């Protein structure tokens, strides 16, 4: 990474975030600020190199709503698996569905793939470049597809993007 094309704003923001993380890691100790600064700068530099900053506005409210939605569904997902595992008859009816994503490529789609894995009944198994996602479901009778659409809406709102032509 050369200094010339270093986006200063993003660098400062990320550096600050990493410095905060350092503070957490170092158990709040302040005698390590020297090395901490080195670490934060190095991490920020690496992060800028790996994830060049993209203009994107993430609203606080949307984030909170998304997190709530996600946590709640994680809990549901966990409970569902637990129930299936502990029931005398798990009642599985697995299948692999293929759905086309309405989200634009990049971070939104990737977040979706990761999130569905942690949500009830579904597991991302393959994301193609053209936006088709193969999803493994525990029980084909459950409305997984509908929940996916809900998730899509949350993510679209989070990133402030429009959902493209959903099928």
């Amino acid at each position, binding site marked *: 990474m050369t200094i010339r094309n270093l986006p200063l704003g993003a660098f400062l923001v990320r550096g600050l975030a990493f410095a905060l993380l*350092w503070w957490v*890691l170092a158990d709040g100790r302040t005698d390590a600020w020297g090395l901490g600064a080195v670490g934060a700068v*190095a991490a920020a530099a690496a992060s800028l190199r790996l994830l060049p900053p993209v203009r994107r506005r993430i609203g606080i409210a949307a984030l909170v709503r998304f997190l709530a939605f996600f946590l709640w569904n994680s809990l549901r997902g966990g409970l569902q698996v637990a129930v299936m595992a502990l029931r005398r008859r798990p009642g599985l009816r697995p299948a692999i569905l293929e759905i086309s994503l309405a989200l634009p490529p990049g971070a939104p789609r990737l977040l979706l793939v990761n999130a569905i894995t942690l949500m009830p009944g579904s597991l991302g198994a393959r994301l193609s470049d053209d936006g088709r996602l193969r999803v493994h479901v525990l029980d084909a009778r459950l409305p997984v597809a509908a929940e996916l659409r809900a998730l899509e809406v949350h993510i679209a709102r989070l990133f402030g993007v429009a959902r493209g032509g959903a099928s």
Partner: protein
Amino acid sequence: MIPLLKRAAVILAAASFAGALVFAMLDLPAPGVHLPAAVEANMAASGVAHPVTAVLLNFRGYDTLLEVGVLLLALLGVLAVGARATPPAPAPGEPVKRMFARLAAPLMVLVAVYLLWAGAIQPGGAFQAGAVLGAAAVLLHLTGILPGWGAPGLRLRAGLAAGFLIFLVVAGALLAQGAVLAYPPAQAGRLILLIEAGLTVSLGLILAGLFLALSRDSGDEA
């Protein structure tokens, strides 16, 4: 029949060896030399706060110097087995895993620096830090962001050797003080940190290199 007999004989012999060993260990009197006391007594002059780190980088720092050499040697061996002049093309990427790598790697850099710092006060230090750094590189390679290695170029070689070389230069320079690696107590902490910082980078590269060079034979990139 014969292999079976051989098996049985080996296992029987091993079992009796293990038994004898355990009994012999139970039978040991208390040792005549007590090094923890000596370590304790010299902690103040060691330049670090954690006794294991003190032993590792000061009292028995010479072992560690050679040990870094061993690690570098292993990489040399791996490179020598099948040196390929041109680096293989990066593996085809996969966006989901790639995204994870892009997020995790900077965090791992931070954690590595943290572990390096933590070495002075708790178990940890250059080796763990280097391992995390190396793991970050491996992750980037696995997800197709970092290409595999052919023959490392000059900059990479410098990075690989830097930690060892710094260690070596410090060892040689301190010979002027009377002995290899005889740190003056006042400078010990700083010198050890310098060595550890160098080692972190180099060990990270070496460990990553071990993996990346290994992956040349996996047939994945072909």
